[in-house]
């Protein structure tokens, strides 16, 4: 019997009974949410000049606080909010990851000493590109501070998304996570047209996909009479018939989630959005949305549809294979580095899917490890991109990276490290991740998927290596970009991600231990 029904149905006879909620268990969500609301108020009442520092304090403070609570919660394993929220090992792990990455993302967004005009965001997103009042804003040094509440809301949404234990909460979380991101995508200070186009596409397609998700949820509800994942899985195992209803439900639900993880054929938004969005935002969402979306996907598949794995596995096999191949192949001929990394992120999603379809504890663990490793590497990668600039802003065209290794060896070295990690060379986090998912896949008998993965990795290696070739093996040209020395914000983010990339590659055991302790999803 669904908890919601309990509450609503109760109204008819006796007094309204409060749903029992373990507030401490969901404290991280509450902290972030509260912080988000506060920062909205700050936008409203704190004068323009003072906003930025206040916002930064709020953002960093709240994230750190949430992180502290999350760490304190370790080992917790419960379902609260009348079964709406599941706080278990994987949830906490992903919360931790999301918060840390979110913090790094916040640092990237806070960077303002790279671009002579200020930070990465348009002073007034509503202003016409190139219009005199925009220039006015720029001259008066206005800074876009609405990004901070957006960031916090998005993070809140992600936290809920990975913890949500029924489809309704999941849907709401999905929207809370996505809507701010749509807006953030459109706020680039330079190349406004691209940025707005990215926002539009992201928004329309995102809304489109969440409609699919919702309709799928409706179908499953229709089948099982509940939106709770556990209830659904129970009904699925209990009652047969109405196969098509379940099939459509699962399928549409998948569409919504696979869209977020950018799996082929629901991936096409990714390159455009990654390229158009302000680079810090791209980094932030490339890293976090992957985690959140895969978290939800894993929960749905393992908790709710575990019984039906034989039904959805074949479909996911094909999608995983397609995702790996298409991502890798198309990336080869890209000339814009952000776009190339977008395709690379598609390919990476494919690799993670290989772990997901293993549908085993190892599969879950390997996918989680891969997500964390990938998130750190990705945010670092985009951090570097923000620093490589020429007169017109970020120099994202690959030709401008030629000979960068000669001009600024350190940054080039760090970027090469990230590339090697994404290519899955041993002693980097990417390799351990790949190793994990392949191991899980072979263990559950999907050897051929691993073969496809191997082929894809080879193809992918080519374009990762190509960047290194450009930076080191070719001589600098007149229009080779130069690296701007960033402030502490970016430096910290960059260092952290580089350190993690190596640490997880050389000594992955500690994270593996944490993941092992995290165990599986609670039902």
């Amino acid at each position, binding site marked *: 019997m669904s908890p919601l029904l309990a509450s609503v149905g109760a109204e008819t006879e006796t007094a309204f009974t409060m749903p029992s909620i373990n507030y401490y268990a969901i404290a991280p969500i509450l902290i972030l949410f509260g912080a988000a609301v506060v920062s909205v108020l700050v936008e409203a009442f704190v004068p323009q000049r003072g906003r930025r520092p206040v916002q930064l304090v709020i953002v960093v403070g709240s994230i750190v606080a949430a992180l502290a609570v999350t760490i304190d919660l370790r080992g917790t394993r419960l379902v609260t909010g009348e079964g709406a929220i599941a706080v278990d090992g994987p949830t906490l792990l992903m919360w931790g990851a999301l918060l840390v990455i979110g913090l790094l993302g916040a640092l990237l967004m806070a960077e303002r000493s790279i671009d002579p005009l200020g930070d990465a965001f348009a002073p007034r997103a509503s202003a016409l590109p190139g219009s005199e009042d925009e220039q006015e804003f720029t001259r008066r040094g206005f800074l876009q501070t609405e990004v901070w509440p957006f960031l916090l809301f998005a993070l809140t949404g992600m936290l809920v998304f990975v913890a949500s234990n029924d489809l309704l909460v999941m849907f709401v979380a999905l929207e809370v996570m996505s809507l701010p991101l749509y807006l953030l995508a459109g706020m680039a200070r330079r190349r406004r047209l691209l940025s707005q186009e990215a926002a539009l596409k992201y928004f329309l397609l995102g809304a489109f996909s969440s409609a699919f998700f919702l309709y799928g949820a409706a179908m499953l509800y229709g089948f099982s009479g509940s939106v709770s994942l556990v209830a659904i899985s129970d009904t699925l195992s209990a009652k047969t018939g109405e196969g098509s209803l379940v099939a459509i439900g699962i399928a549409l639900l998948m569409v919504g989630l696979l869209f977020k993880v950018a799996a082929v054929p629901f991936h096409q938004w990714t390159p455009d959005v990654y390229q158009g969005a302000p680079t810090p935002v791209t980094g932030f969402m490339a890293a976090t949305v992957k985690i959140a979306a895969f978290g939800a996907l894993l929960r749905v598949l393992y908790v709710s549809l575990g019984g039906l794995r034989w039904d959805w596995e074949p479909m996911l096999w094909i999608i995983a294979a397609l995702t790996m191949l298409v991502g890798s192949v198309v990336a080869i001929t890209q000339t814009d580095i952000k776009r190339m990394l977008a395709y690379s992120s598609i390919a990476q999603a494919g690799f993670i899917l290989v772990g997901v379809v293993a549908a085993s504890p190892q599969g879950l663990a390997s996918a989680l490890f891969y997500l964390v490793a990938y998130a750190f590497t990705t945010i670092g990668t985009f951090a570097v991109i923000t620093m490589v600039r020429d007169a017109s802003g970020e120099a994202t065209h690959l030709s401008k990276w030629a*000979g960068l*290794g*000669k001009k600024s060896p350190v940054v080039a070295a760090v970027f090469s490290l990230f590339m*090697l990690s994404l290519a899955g*060379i*041993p*002693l980097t986090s990417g*390799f*351990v991740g790949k*190793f994990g998912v*392949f*191991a899980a896949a*072979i*263990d559950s008998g999907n*050897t051929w998927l*691993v*073969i496809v993965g*191997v082929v894809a*990795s*080879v193809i992918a*290696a*080519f374009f990762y*290596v*190509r960047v290194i*070739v450009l930076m*080191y*093996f*070719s*001589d600098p040209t007149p229009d080779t970009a130069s690296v701007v020395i960033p402030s502490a914000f970016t430096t910290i983010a960059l260092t952290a991600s580089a350190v993690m990339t190596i640490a997880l590659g050389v000594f*992955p*055991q500690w994270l*593996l*231990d944490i993941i*092992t302790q995290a165990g599986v999803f609670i039902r």
Partner: protein
Amino acid sequence: MNFPWLTTLMVVPLVGSIVVALLPKGRDLLAKQVALVVSLATLVITVLMATQFQGDSAEPFQFVESHPWIPAFGISYSVGVDGIALVLVALAATLVPVVVLAGWHDVDESSRGSVKGYFALILVLETLMIGVFSALDVFLFYVFFEVMLIPVYFMIGRFGGIQRSYAAVKFLLYSLVGGLFMLASLIGLYVVSAQMTGTGTFDFVSLAGLDIDPDVQKLLFLGFFFAFAVKAPLWPFHTWLPDAAAESKPGTSVLLIGVLDKVGTFGMIRYCLPIFPAASDFYAPVVIGMALVGIFYGAFVALSQNDMKRLFAYSSMSHFGFITLGIFVFTSQGQTGSVVYMVAHGLSTAALFLTAGFLMDRYRGSSLISDYEGVNKAAPVLAGFFLVAALSSLALPGLVSFVGEFLVLLGSFERYVWVGALATVGIVITAAYVLRLYQRSMTGPLKPELEGMGDLRGREVTALVPIALLTIVLGVFPAPLLNVINPAVDRVMTSVGATDPAPTVQSAGLSTEGADQ
């Protein structure tokens, strides 16, 4: 043996390379000196270690160290050497100082990449080479196997010739293809071990202990073998080698072909055979076929090369054919021969590439045979070393390469008469292309352009002498090699369950007692 010999061997060059890399810009000379000292120190340590090695010990591996690394996957940092690994480690440790000394000025005027970078990379590479040969954990081996690509990739790509980046990328991707397929089988192996013993492991000894279902073996073998065949390189997976060799600095080529590629053949005898005995037996005919083709293919192609470096590359391919052949005929003569041949080939390759490099330094860095004639007149010492190198690569009796080649041929002949006989014919073509090279470049009237080209200088001679000495001394007195290799090979033979065919006529008992029993 409590002293962590092997770890020390790996740490010393690594530290050295860090030091070199951290030196201030412009202190190139200092960088070179540090590199030389470090590599020599490593050599000394290696020699000390080798003296501690007991050839007749009951332990399969010596100087073993083992510490858990990633217990979650049953991965441990465990190293140790048997005779085979020992000689290859020694080879690496010997060649690095030689290369450093020989390459003293190779990168002085390189537009990209700093001078110190080159030498730092060489030292890193030394660490990895020693690691890959002494790893006792298959995963650890794989890690070294793959990571090794990176420094070489940079050495080719940053310090190479015109086509360098094409060559470098081709090298890297080709090796990655092999490596990733190996990764797949590696994981498969892990999973299989998990299913058989409950807990998955990568420990070589316990993996060799399992007897895996033959059909599974046949699958897993392919992944490993493919990687090794690319590395070695075996026909038809060889085309990356000529490009890489032609584009890279002589020193790079020496380390690449002289040592790195040995990882391929080393992997076959160390991993393919003991872990997949049934599969090795099953695929032996195919492999032997590839080896035979390689022997002749490489020799024939080398016969009409006009670029010395490419010629050496193809000749190496032919030699790798011999080595592989010796491994897969499953006779102690063949396999010991292969290991000796690996060492010999390392030495002769080094001699050839370095001498050629010195020659090229003297004439616009051209590696075209047609650009040289009658060098003997202008630079007799250089020509002399060139001849020694050439002779050792055609396996002249009395040189170490002869010991290797003859044993390989003998071993093959024992098992498959016609294979052995056919392979033996290869020595004629080898002689043909080697002497053709010497005749074209060194003899005849001196080319006018080459007038007044200087002979080898002290540094260059110093670099070449040790190689030449080793080639001759080990040829006359190979016991130091054989004493350590024989026991290791016997273990391999037992692990594949193969025994040498007995002579058809039982001889008077003379000379049937091998020194290794």
